Structure formats: structure tokens, C-alpha cells
């Protein structure tokens, strides 16, 4: 028998600190596979956010920086502007990108920075204990919306991808999910496309939003969490290539 699937070298062979069934591990692997398949480990610089993925540099074996909450797109800007030949990606959660860092992603997109943003949307703050995120669904119960989020009280879930689509500086925006084998494969294609765009020198920012499970703070089993993405999240966050097809 021959090995047809194994851990890709850029994904370090170590246990993660993520909860069982968390989507971060899958997303990390897709990025690592992309880097290896494109042969760009030697020219890639990754940016870890503040949030559950703050330790992403412990899992991805490329040059990496860990930055202040929400500021990854600004850091990426500083890197790419001074190193146009490097491949710069940021990996950000919904608190990091859509809440405290809303200004930075908006303006990096607005300027059309040639960077790749992987945006993990799990509709909740994981690291700090399951508080409401900008992307939290209406009626979703979190530590800070104990009776469920209401439009009147906390506003509607923020659709970042749709927002960024309106900016001339973004060239590729796709929303994917990790909710099934097929969706994971699709997410991989989207991530790879986003990296390829940057490699080709395309003028603008590409963002892949990934709907990702948080079984712990959704209070669901990992399998039910996957189902919940499809039954609930994709209704508010429809999947698809919102801008710049591949």
C-alpha cells in the first residue's frame, strides 16, 4: 500500500492546544498544504492574531509574527510594502478582524494591499470564554448575550465579506466553510487561489472567510457543530465566491 494522505511538512508534528473538534486545526492544515504545494515556505511570512489562534506560529513552520489584537492587516501592510517579493498572509478570527480590527481590514482592503487574509468566523470569542462576536447570530446565546443576541440590543451579525466586496481594492473574496469533507476541500481551493493571486502579483487584497466550528462555546458536539454551520450560519453568511471567481 502507498501513503495517499499524510501530514504536510509545513504543519508541525505536534499536538495543538485547540479544543476537540475545533476548526482551527483544519484551517491550519489547509494553509500549510497550500504553502508546500506552491513551494513558497522560503518566502512566506505569516501573521498570527490575538484569539485562539494566537499560537499559530507553534503549528505553522514558516516565519511568523504574533501581533496586537486586530492589527494584522496594518502589520501585513508594513511587511508587504517593504518586501514586495514576500508572500504575506494574516490569519485572523472574528473578534480580531471584525471587531477591534475592523478599521485595519477595511483600510488594507481599501488600499488594495497585496496580501492574503484568512478570516476564521466561528461567531463567538473563543479565547476569552465565549463572549459575543460581531458575527454572533441573532438569538445565539453567548457569555455576554445570555438571553441570545438581539438586533435591537446588539445589532445584526456583521457580514465582513459582503462589506469588503464593495471596496475596489479587494480582488478576491470568498466565503467557505469547514462543515463537511466537501466544504473543507472547497476551502482548500479558495485558500490556494488566494495565495496564487498574491504570487502572481495581482493588485489587491484577497480574503477567504471560513465558517468554522466552535463546539465548546456553541455547547454542541463536534458533529452537531458541523451541522449547525450548515443549518444556521450559512443562512446569514451565504457561501460562495463573492468577488473574483477562481
Amino acid at each position, binding site marked *: 500500500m502507498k501513503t495517499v494522505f499524510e501530514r504536510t511538512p509545513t504543519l508541525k508534528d505536534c499536538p495543538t492546544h485547540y479544543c476537540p473538534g475545533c476548526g482551527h486545526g483544519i484551517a491550519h492544515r489547509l494553509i500549510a498544504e497550500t504553502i508546500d504545494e506552491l513551494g513558497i515556505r522560503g518566502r512566506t511570512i505569516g501573521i498570527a492574531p490575538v484569539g485562539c489562534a494566537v499560537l499559530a506560529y507553534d503549528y505553522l513552520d514558516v516565519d511568523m*509574527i*504574533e501581533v496586537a489584537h486586530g492589527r494584522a492587516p496594518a502589520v501585513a501592510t508594513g511587511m508587504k510594502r517593504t518586501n514586495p517579493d514576500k508572500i504575506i498572509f494574516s490569519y485572523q478570527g472574528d473578534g480580531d478582524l471584525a471587531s477591534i480590527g475592523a478599521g485595519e481590514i477595511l483600510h488594507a482592503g481599501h488600499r488594495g494591499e497585496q496580501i492574503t487574509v484568512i478570516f476564521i468566523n466561528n461567531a463567538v470569542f473563543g479565547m476569552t470564554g465565549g463572549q459575543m462576536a460581531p458575527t454572533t447570530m441573532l438569538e445565539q446565546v453567548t457569555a455576554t448575550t445570555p438571553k441570545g443576541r438581539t438586533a435591537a440590543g446588539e445589532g445584526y451579525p456583521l457580514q465582513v465579506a459582503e462589506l469588503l466586496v464593495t471596496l475596489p481594492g479587494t480582488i478576491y473574496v470568498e466565503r467557505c466553510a469547514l462543515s463537511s469533507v466537501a466544504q473543507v476541500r472547497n476551502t482548500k481551493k479558495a485558500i490556494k487561489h488566494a495565495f496564487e493571486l498574491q504570487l502572481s502579483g495581482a493588485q489587491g487584497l484577497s480574503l477567504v472567510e471560513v465558517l468554522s466550528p466552535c463546539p465548546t462555546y456553541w455547547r454542541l458536539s463536534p458533529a452537531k457543530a458541523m451541522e449547525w454551520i450548515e443549518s444556521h450560519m450559512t443562512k446569514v453568511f451565504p457561501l460562495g465566491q463573492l468577488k473574483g471567481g477562481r
Partner: protein
Amino acid sequence: MTERGQSSRGGDKRVLMCGNEALAEAAIMAGCDAYFGYPITPQNEISAYMARRMPDEGRVFLQSESELAAINMVFGASATGQRTMTSSSSPGISLMQEGISYLAGAELPAVVVNVMRGGPGLGNIAPSQGDYFQATRGGGHGDYRTIVFGPSSVQELADCMLLAFDLADLYRMPVMVLADGILGQMMEPIVLKEKPRRDLPAKEWALTGAEGRPQNIVRSLWLGEGVLEELNCTLRDRYEQIQKNEVICEQHDVDDAEIVVVAYGVAARIVCAAVQKAKQDGIKAGWIRPVTLWPFPIEQISKAADELRIFLVVEMSNGQMVEDVRLAVSGKAPVVFYGRPGGGVPTVDEIFELIKQLTLRSKTPI
């Protein structure tokens, strides 16, 4: 692209430049690869100058969407081994403090210029020295220091930019140049001349892509037990080394002085004139001017306080550096403060009168 340490504008010629433009040109001479900044008065000439000049030199200029973004762009560029800077004025520097703390934690070099204005809050746009505490105590959260220069002329402002970039790289930390609205706006003749440079270590830690080497990580998060304490101790040792090696301080006629006036920046120019006037009046006066505000010239001031004499500290604030002077004097001599906050600028006559009063009083028998 010009080589590091060069600029197409450098030379021996005396030119009339405002402080903001002079420091910008000096940064280009120092090999600044990238400038990121957000407009705020009274330092807008810096970004306008950089916008014109940096592309000419094949380097990066970018106006950011905020001070938060600017300092984080600096953070990103610095992590890749580039020489980089930002500039702002007091309220903007407050916004940058998060990033400055991260720079300190991640041991990244950067130069931050603060052209101070009146505060607190939005304050006014008049010159001030109200950010001394913020600058010399780190300014952001956590246990760190930044090297701080407090130049008092346009020439010195330009000169200390070259040194600031070198020290930032040498000690892998943020260095702040603390000017004020007067120094930024005023024009003086200067000579933009290359100065001797430090020997600097290679930036092996820089994020350049892990081609043929293990991964480099730039981070300020250390969760393991005792790991952060170890980093803090490493930083402390470095800070002690800086305190030992990098103090710059100017002093005049201190040895036989009955009164020593301490001031930095623009206030020191005024003090210098007032002391000269006092000496013409027969008063034995001297003055000390810290050029580095951190590391502070503790030894120099402590030594001056070994003889009984009055210390007068003059600032454009309600009294900030005076606390460092008191610590250095350590109770050995009386320390008197005179300050003009909120954009007020002390006059030569005010200081002269005070010197006269203080020296008279010390001679009056009780």
C-alpha cells in the same frame, strides 16, 4: 536607491530647515527604509517631506488610516529587518503606545518621533513638554523602557535621528525622539553631515522567509512558566547596560556654581540665555542639559549635588523631569521647580529673575 547612511541632500552646506523637515532628511540619511504616519499638528511637515522624498530614494512612504495602524505598519516592517519610523504628536503618541509596548516586548527596533503639544486630551497645538513621563516610563503597558532623546536645536534633532536608528538596532528596542512644537516648526541653519556610526549586529532574527533555515518567530507572548520573567530580566540587563553606556548630557560651569539650572529641549535654550544673564550679573550659575532623557544623567546630577547648591528645574510642563532630578539629587540639595504648562513658554527674564531670587535667599541669614 541610496545606500544606508547617505542621502542625495547630505553635504557640508549650511541650509535653513525646520526641525520637522530636518529630522525627516536625517532619517533618510540614517537609512530609514520606510515611514508610516498619520497627520497631526504640529508635525505634519514630516509626513509631507517623507511623501516627497522617500519615493525619490526608492523607499517606502505610506499615510496610514490611524496612529494605531501606523505603529503596527512600523511593527511589520521592522520585523522583516527594515529600518523604519513613524512620527506623531502627543494625542497620536498615546494611540501608538500599544504598538510601542509590542515593539518592546518583541525586541524590535523602531524610531518614534513625538513633536509634543499641549495636553491632556486634545489640548492645543502649542509647544509643550508634557509627555516626559509617558516617554521616559515606557508609556504603554508592561515592564519596559524606551531610549528617549530630548534635543534642543534643529541641528541636534537631526543628529540624534542618526543615533536613534543605530541604538534601536543595537539594543533591539524602540527609541523615541522627543521634540516639541517649537523645535518641529522653527527653522535654523544646519549642516546635514554624516556622523560616525555604530557597529551593528546582523539581524538574524528578522522574518525574511525561512529559506534553508529554521522558522523565525517574532512575538511578545510568553505563556510558559517563568519564560516572560526571563525575558524581562534580559531586558533589565540591557537597560542597565544602556544606562551605563548611552547617557548624553551637556553641562556648563557647574563646578563653582551656587545654582544649577536643569532643563532639556527648547526650555534648555531659554535657561542657557538666562544663566548667561545671571553670570553677567555676578551670580555663580551653571546649567545641566540632559540630551538623553532615558537613560537619565543620574550620575552627573548626583555628582553636582555633592556640593551644596540649589537646583532649579525648568520645564514646559507642571513638573515631570523634576522628579528624576530629585531622585538623582537624592535629598543632598534643595530642588526648586519652575514650569509653564499648556503651551506656555518660559521667558529668559522669568528664569533670570527666579535665579536672582533663589541665590539672594540662600545668602540671607536666617
